């Protein structure tokens, strides 16, 4: 029974990982960029919320209405003025620039906020839980985070399938030149994809901040979880990404049953195993890249 409880907890945690992963997946699918600063951007979201909550008097649960749009604008600008020039100068450059961004962001947060951890107080959600049976209890916060993850994924999917811009974002992932030939400015579309990625990772950061204490150096850990979910799930498939996140979540909670160290390590081991046997993941889509 505790195993069942662990698996349920793991699935709930997996929603958080999937939230980290979907932005990475989108940017990788559309412009072949892995943003190594992805985790640090999420952490920056927590710190922005920490600053904005007292200033705006918006409760922590609703602060996303400020943070997410701010990050979408930020994502658009970062893509347009930092990543796009690096893309123009080669794939290696982009990787290095996002890595540099990660280190710079992390150290700026360290300088400004010191090494202290912060979390977002979302009130009674944290403490209360739904007692399913004597063995199984599901914290409301975890349920909310999984719900947010699913809503974000569905919204993203709808945007990509139903809207004029979303359709072209998919199109530019298929064939950049052809997208230009139908009159699209691919730089704009890339920046739109980055805006969506930054918006989703802002959600991820806020969920993380509600879930646990976040320090300026936490970013890379969640970047790695996110990337692992993308790889396990198979590139280019948002639902595969969700599945990948769930696998990692369950690996974390099951490992933690043995000891906390194994809880941190097991998702990475699962990832390395998948990389060794199925480098294209378990739900590979037809090659998008």
């Amino acid at each position, binding site marked *: 029974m505790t195993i069942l409880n662990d698996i349920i907890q793991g699935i709930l945690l997996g929603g958080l990982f999937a939230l980290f992963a979907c932005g990475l997946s989108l940017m990788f699918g559309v412009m072949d960029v892995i943003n190594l600063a992805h985790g640090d951007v999420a952490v920056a979201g927590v710190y922005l919320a920490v600053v904005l909550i007292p200033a705006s008097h918006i409760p922590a649960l609703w602060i996303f209405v400020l943070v997410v749009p701010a990050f979408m604008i930020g994502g658009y600008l970062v893509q347009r003025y930092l990543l796009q020039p690096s893309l123009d100068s080669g794939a290696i450059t982009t990787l290095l620039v996002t890595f540099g961004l990660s280190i710079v962001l992390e150290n700026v947060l360290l300088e400004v906020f010191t090494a202290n951890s912060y979390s977002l107080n979302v009130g009674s959600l944290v403490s209360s839980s739904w007692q399913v049976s004597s063995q199984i209890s599901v914290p409301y916060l975890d349920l909310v985070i999984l719900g947010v993850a699913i809503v974000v994924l569905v919204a993203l999917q709808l945007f990509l399938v139903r809207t*004029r811009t979303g*359709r*072209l974002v*998919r*199109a530019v*992932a*298929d*064939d950049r*030149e*052809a*997208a*230009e*030939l*139908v*009159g*699209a*400015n691919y730089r704009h579309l890339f920046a739109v994809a980055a805006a969506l990625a930054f918006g989703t990772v802002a959600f991820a950061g806020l969920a993380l901040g509600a879930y646990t204490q976040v320090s300026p150096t936490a970013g890379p850990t969640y970047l790695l979880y996110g990337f692992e979910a993308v790889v396990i799930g198979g590139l280019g498939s948002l639902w595969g990404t969700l599945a990948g996140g769930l696998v990692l979540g369950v690996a974390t909670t099951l490992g933690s049953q043995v000891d906390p160290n194994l809880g941190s390590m097991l998702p990475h081991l699962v990832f390395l195993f998948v990389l060794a046997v199925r480098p294209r993941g378990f739900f590979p*889509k*037809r090659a*998008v890249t």
Partner: protein
Amino acid sequence: MSALLEVSDLSVHHGQLEAVRSVDLTVTAGEIVAMIGANGAGKSTLLRTIAGLHTPSRGTIHFDGRDVTGLPVHARVAAGIALVPEGRHMFGSLSVEDNLIAGAYSRRRGPWTVDKVVELFPWIGERRRQQAWQLSGGEQQAVAIGRALMSNPRLLLLDELSLGLSPIALGRIYAVLPELVSAGLGVLLVEQDVAQALSVAARVHCLLEGRQRLSGRPSELSMSEIEAAYFGTGRAAASVGEAQ
């Protein structure tokens, strides 16, 4: 009538290689101009440069009297230039219908809709929900043309129309060309099938190693002249004495 497209002294480099060498060219509205030449002659490079995918090293491109030489691709689409690229370049993961809708991304006004394209190529009707990568080469070619038409162009650049097409599909596409042109569209056509090109075009140009070796109306050109220009044999007198 003033020219819709006016290319003058255009040279294009791929690194060290000069793929197009001082080419002059005009296309007027309602006219089909064909570009013939052997493989590697620079035809695709020329069309892609007109569409904005390559930057010329010399020369200018005027469209509708306006200098578009420095414009990015998407701005030229907005101005009314559409290229059907060699190799079709479908959006493979999008449905056929979404490929067509994507073609209208530039929001240029005009007569073309998905239904109009289906009228042109009726088989698309029952396959509009299929993903584009599932189509055969000829079907993709038709969708590519439809997608280009969806931008309501005034100038249509067609690269290697007949490549990979079945004779029936090809016949169908060539049958609709005059229809499109009579509505005022200008067409610049790259074709390896010389006879086909001569039969539809008002004027032809032959490229050899990036240079314009021959230009004129099909009726005024002899087969031997064309052959000489095409393969670079014979005296190959550069007969660029053509009325623009």
